[in-house]
């Protein structure tokens, strides 16, 4: 029973982190048909900016409460600045090109972002542990969990809810769904698709940066963290169906619970379990669980 409870809580915590780290990737793919490898770079930028900002603030000796505000602010700055630079500076000149070419272009952007983070913050590790400790621990069946972990779960649910509400209950969201459904018809209907691309890319980049910024207090922020997340995020969105927000939620939950179960029941299969689940899903649903049906175009 204790193991089952631990799997449930650990799985949910890991899934929340995965969702926050991958939802921007699937949003950008859904709207722009770009598998954005630079997403890992946004994650790393967000993590560094957050750890750096929290570190500076904590040196002032003020209460830790304000540090929780620094996290989204830094994510917003990192996501908007880097997203704008990449979308306006590079990607807009390449819209309509082959998807494989766009993967290579965003990979190049990822490498540049990696170097930019090193130029700004160097190669030393950054630790910003204060927010992770500030909320204390909550005991569940005798196992202590940090309050911060539940904060991440809450933020993931909030982001998922806001995205769902935004897409289904706002005019911009509904237009975005039309763009996701069919880009050419959207243009024919007079929707400014290029503007939607810019907005989508900025939201996706900021979500990526938010994933990193929220993770920063729990980890040591070191060079290379962006490369690690992109592989895991890719697994999540492939399972859920590339471009699908509900797919990202379900994909994150499946991967989160599969990994937690493996760690508690059979640890050697920890990494294997994620890709086993991915292979099993793709064997039954080759385009993922929530892939959008596409009409054949002649």
């Amino acid at each position, binding site marked *: 029973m204790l*193991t089952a409870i*631990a799997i449930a809580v650990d799985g949910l915590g890991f899934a929340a982190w995965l969702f926050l780290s991958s939802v921007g990737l699937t949003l950008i793919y859904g709207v722009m048909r770009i598998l954005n490898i630079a997403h890992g770079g946004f994650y790393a930028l967000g993590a560094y900016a957050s750890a750096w900002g929290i570190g500076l603030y904590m040196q002032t000796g003020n209460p830790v409460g304000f540090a929780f505000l620094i996290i989204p602010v830094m994510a917003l700055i990192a996501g908007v600045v880097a997203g704008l630079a990449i979308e306006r500076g590079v990607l807009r000149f390449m819209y309509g090109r082959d998807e494989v070419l766009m993967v290579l272009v965003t990979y190049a952007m990822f490498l540049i972002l990696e170097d930019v983070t090193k130029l700004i913050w160097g190669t030393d590790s950054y630790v910003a542990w204060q927010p*992770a400790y500030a909320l204390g621990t909550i005991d569940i069946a005798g*196992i202590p969990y940090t309050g911060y972990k539940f904060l991440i779960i809450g933020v993931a649910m909030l982001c998922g809810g806001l995205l769902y509400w935004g897409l289904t209950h706002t005019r911009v969201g509904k237009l975005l769904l039309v763009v996701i459904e069919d880009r050419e018809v959207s243009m024919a209907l007079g929707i400014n698709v290029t503007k939607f691309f810019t907005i989508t890319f900025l939201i996706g980049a900021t979500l990526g940066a938010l994933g990193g910024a929220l993770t920063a207090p729990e*980890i040591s922020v070191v*060079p290379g*963290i962006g490369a690690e997340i992109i592989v895991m995020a890719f697994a999540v969105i492939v399972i859920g169906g590339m471009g699908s927000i509900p797919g990202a939620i379900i994909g994150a939950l499946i991967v989160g619970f599969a990994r937690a179960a493996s760690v508690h029941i059979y*640890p050697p299969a920890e990494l294997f379990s994620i890709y086993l689940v991915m292979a099993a899903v793709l064997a039954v649903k080759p385009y993922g669980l929530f892939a959008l049906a596409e009409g054949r175009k002649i």
Partner: protein
Amino acid sequence: MRKISRILMTTTAVATATICAAPVFADDVKVGVVTFLSGGAAGPFGVPARNAAELVIDAINKGDLPAPYNTAGLAGNTIAPVYVDENSKQKNADFQKLVEKDGVEMVVGYISSSSCKSIAPEAEKLKRLTILFDCGTPQIFEDIVTEPHYTFRTAATATMDNVAAARYLMDTGADAGRVAGINQNYAWGQDSWRDFSASLEQLAEATEVVTEQFPKVYAGQYGSEISALLTNRPEVVHSSFWGGDMEAFVIQGSARGLFERSKVVLTAGETAMFSLAKQIPEGTVIGARGPHGDLAPESDLNTWFRAAYKERFGSEPTYPSYKMAQALLGVKAAADKAGSSLQDDVIGALEGLEWEGPSGKVSMALAGGHQAIQDTAYGTFKLAEDGSASLVDVIRYDAGCVNPPAGVKSLNWIKSGFDGATCN
């Protein structure tokens, strides 16, 4: 306009080439220095090692080192370093380039056990003197290159770290009836856990492994693993985590009370003991993969190294810096002994050599004189009265106590009950 831009571009190119290229003279010895300059291991390992290489190479070239290294150069020849990033998908190709294109006389480098496993056979194939300065897996000379000629390792293996960790727990009276491990899922982590758990089996009256966790390297998130450790209630948790992974484990495990519930042993914990002084709970057992850093014995060389490193880089040298210094001083000792910096002469002198490093005596005692052993030490973490990190209850172990004798594989030696160990 076009002419002006062409002139500007040419000027920039020439200026860049001038700035980047260090002058190499005819009797310079080109030495490839390979450490992580990017990726997760750069901050805690690669850059401190590179810093130490810069410091020690400059001092060797100028003859600024304390005795017995106070003569300039390698047998009088200046070292010209060529720095290469270990964080590469094509390590063997980078090594080949160093040997065949850059024409280095020798290579000093490699932090990761994975790197060493692929480079050691390459060094033998290309017949180039290669000194592995840090990686820990005992497999290098026990399984991969069993008759080395060109490959040396100037650092002791993970066996020493883990046998000493087990002995330290016994010597400090720790309860080790229920043991768990969390180690990275590659040669270093697996070998470390194998040697530690096997050593405890020999040393403790009764010990039971309650869980073994092997997350992938650079995973960063250990929530599930920490829950598994907490639910299994081990008395001892062993971890050979290093760098960012170790720091993340300390932050997450400490926040959830793991370090209070279990005695945690961090065999590579020294690199984080200053930066995470407030997160590492008192009582945590800390190792430095040898008697490095705060565990280094006092000597003129250690005093010089610590002061010179701090003055140049603004921080205390951690164990990767010590190990790089140890390797380069071994090369100097060998070249000076041979009176030559030519490869074959240095190889001949380095086999079985003993020399003094900033961490004390190093002996190339294993693998036909190609694998180093040295004394080691462990300590228990404690915050000093001024709030700074310190190690107390430090116990030193003689090299013969925690390293296998020549010709015996590590695991066989442990399972034999440490046959022939000087402290049995």
